[in-house]
């Protein structure tokens, strides 16, 4: 049984609590890194993380790319869309093909 969690600024992830996700209101990058490490060892299947927070700990997130669980998925927060999520997809394409052949730009 795997848990689903949301992490980020309080105002962005508040709503997820009511539909049954575990929420971790965190704004400090350092704190987020520690929390993530704890969660990777626990049984979390999916961790949604707001883009604002994800941007500041990108290198840490890259370490978990190749692990089967958890899937760490950036989502836009209340401050709006930074495009990090799409960039992440392009990163996968770049890793596989060598260059981003599927970008719409």
């Amino acid at each position, binding site marked *: 049984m795997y848990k689903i969690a949301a992490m980020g600024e309080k105002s962005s992830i508040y709503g997820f609590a009511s539909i049954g996700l575990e929420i971790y209101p965190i704004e400090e990058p350092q704190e987020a890194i520690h929390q993530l490490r704890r969660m990777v060892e626990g049984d979390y299947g999916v961790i949604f993380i707001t883009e604002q927070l994800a941007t500041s700990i990108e290198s840490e997130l890259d370490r978990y790319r190749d692990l089967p669980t958890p899937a760490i998925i950036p*989502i836009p927060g209340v401050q709006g869309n930074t495009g990090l999520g799409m960039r992440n997809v392009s990163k996968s394409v770049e890793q596989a093909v060598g260059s981003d052949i599927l970008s719409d730009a």
Partner: protein
Amino acid sequence: MARLNVNPTRMELTNIKNKLKTARKGHKLLKDKRDELMRQFIELVRENKEIRREVEKGIEAANAHMSVARSVMSDEALNVALMLPMQEMSLEITEKNVMSVMIPVFETKFKTADANDIYSYGYAFTSSDLDDAVKALSDIMPLMLRLAEVEKSCQLMAAEIEKTRRRVNALEHVLIPQYEETIKYIRMKLDENDRATTTRLMKVKDMMLEEAHHYSEREA
């Protein structure tokens, strides 16, 4: 091109010929694997981008509702309303094998019998915008989980494709040319030995005939 440092013998030649055959077969298989992985990966990435666009739009809409709710309700009231959820979501994860890459398949489980049991508060003290926000999030949730599934699969496949591509390139550009070069070298060496032996024998024969019949003296 670099060749292997081996003795130019017939035995080595046979060995390397066998190795070359294996390498070629491996190369072909890996190349097929890479092509098929790539095909599926591209499909998955397209889906990934599409779902992501939709999810981002959905979350933005939910956030807009949430902002309104926050502005009309006090923080405490919001806390009271949301911090004791009725619903709990969890996942059952099974793995699917796609070209030897284990990609996750999610199955959502809810604590309460009705998946729509999402309002953890009475409606008396909350704004209707909060209802809208919660509803919007709950509507987008299945898609978000699908996004998580697809995005993780993409990441895992990308890693596998990178590995396979490197292997194919190593075989194609290093190992196979090396073997071919070595085989050529041994063949040349063996042929050269053959010719050397033949000429030596001819010379020896000449010398033996000379010994027996003294041709050169008679001619003189």
